[in-house]
């Protein structure tokens, strides 16, 4: 008989597949599934159903899956590697670094589609390393690194604002980037971000065991034969790759990286601290929130980050309260 946690994993995977189908079929412009199948059979790429599917629904659904999965794993890595439950790409300056460099790419290489994820990654990694180095120099306390991250985020945000002031053309990109969302994402953007994201996932999977052992503390991990500094730096790079890839097509989407690892751990226990279950849950959450964002207030649409915060924050609080009750028993 399957264990409850195994059943829960299967349930999450099934829910994700169902959500993907629902997301592909949900939107303001309606068409019957039969219309799409007819267009597919006839090879009619000019049909409205096909155009809506390929240019709106598919990119958006794929973007939601990639965003949720990547940010969840990025946050998971940071929380595990830095032994800090408050760590997330947004709080450690990774998003701000990726945003600044993506802005620079948009200003100086406006036609270079591939330059965005690469620049975003360089910015994300640099800001992560600067935050980590500053926290290390100050004593590397768990709160210190968050405070250092907030300081770096503010500084990088100010530099971005200064660039917008000097280069007015950058204002539009900055505005879209700051709000963050999945509307208008194209398959070409996703294709450009995919290799960066894939590299981040592969690194996270390959270093999964080292990541778990780092949660025992540096001294114990060292005693167990983990090359602590190298493993931590590679994992930080993986986290930066994942967050930067998302920033390059969706802008700043907060909350997923912070909340999903906690929800995964509360639902699945230790298994929730592994990259794959965490990514599946992040993708499912992002899909649900994106469907709400584009359908509940039609014909208007809310940025997905707002829905994520509105739904995710109370859910996390309820789960934390439940865990406290269990711990008190």
């Amino acid at each position, binding site marked *: 008989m399957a264990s409850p946690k195994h059943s829960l994993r299967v349930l999450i995977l099934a829910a994700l597949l169902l959500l993907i189908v629902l997301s592909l079929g949900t939107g303001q412009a309606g068409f019957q599934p039969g219309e799409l199948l007819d267009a597919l059979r006839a090879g009619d790429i000019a049909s409205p159903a096909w155009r809506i599917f390929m240019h709106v629904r598919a990119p958006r659904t794929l973007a939601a899956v990639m965003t949720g999965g990547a940010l969840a794993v990025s946050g998971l890595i940071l929380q595990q590697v830095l032994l800090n439950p408050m760590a997330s790409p947004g709080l450690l300056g990774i998003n701000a670094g990726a945003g600044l460099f993506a802005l620079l790419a948009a200003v100086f290489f406006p036609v270079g589609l591939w330059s965005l994820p690469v620049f975003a990654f360089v910015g994300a990694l640099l800001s992560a390393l600067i935050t980590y180095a500053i926290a290390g120099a100050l004593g590397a306390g768990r709160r210190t690194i968050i405070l250092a991250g907030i300081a770096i985020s503010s500084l990088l945000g100010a530099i971005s604002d200064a660039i917008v002031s000097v280069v007015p053309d950058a204002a539009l990109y900055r505005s879209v980037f700051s709000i963050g969302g999945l509307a208008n994402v194209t398959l070409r953007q996703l294709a450009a971000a995919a290799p960066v994201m894939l590299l981040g996932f592969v690194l996270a999977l390959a270093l999964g065991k080292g990541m778990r052992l780092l949660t025992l503390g540096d001294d*114990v991990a060292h*005693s*167990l034969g983990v090359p602590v500094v190298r493993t931590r730096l590679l994992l930080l790079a993986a986290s930066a790759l994942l967050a930067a890839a998302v920033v390059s097509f969706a802008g700043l989407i907060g909350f997923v990286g912070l909340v999903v690892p906690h929800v995964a751990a509360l639902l699945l226990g*230790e298994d929730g601290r592994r990259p794959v279950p965490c990514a599946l849950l992040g993708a499912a959450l992002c899909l649900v929130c994106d469907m709400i964002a584009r359908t509940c207030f039609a014909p208007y649409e809310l940025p997905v980050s707002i829905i994520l915060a509105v739904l995710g924050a109370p859910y996390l609080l309820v789960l934390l309260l439940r865990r406290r009750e269990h711990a008190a028993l």
Partner: protein
Amino acid sequence: MLRFDGVTCAYGAHRALQDATFDVQPGLLYGLIGPNGSGKTTTLKAAAGLIAPVRGQVLVNEQAVQALPPRQRARQVAYMPQLRETPDMSVMQLVACGRHPWQRFGRPGADDRQHIEKALHLCSLSGCAHRPLRELSGGEQQRVYLAMMLAQDAQVLLLDEPVNHLDPARQLEVFSLLRTIALAGKTVLMTVHNLPLALQGCDALIVLDAGQVAAQGAPADPHLSQTIQRVFGIALHQAGPGWVVTQPGD
């Protein structure tokens, strides 16, 4: 065997350990004692390869610890620090982490499972193998870390205050367990804050004073007890099989 050969360790300009030379033989239970700040933890960290000596070297079975690749070092030296994390793991999962140096890929094999089961049994944890670590008391968590260390099956075991947070009965149990492990041919060195317990429970003691080895020998050695009294500023009295610590002159 563990050998300190003229080891000096420094934090910036501060020399936490100076020219330390001593051997820790297999088969005996060694205690490292000294007042606060005397260099006990630094000594263990140097032995574990966590701190690189600025002079001298630490040898494990005639090989310099610092020169060993991480996994190979972990098969020879296990270290349990004084301050430990409480990860989101069950007792069994944490103990299984001890097998990491012996696994390249995949799930634990039959040999790994055997070591894990044995370590759980030796530390009286078989009944709570699937409980989350967070639900256990500090003393129980300490035993889980000890079990992880035993599962690691290293030749040299370094333990920083392994009986802190434990009630007296458990303290004696841990000493008895470590003595059994030493008698099985392992090299065991631990720091002990409780002086009467160290004198009663260890086969040999190394006394540190301001980063230097002040004395070493068996607890019954008169020179050793004189040095302990001088270094700690206390008086020692033997009472039956145990020891009593009092103020000088009492």
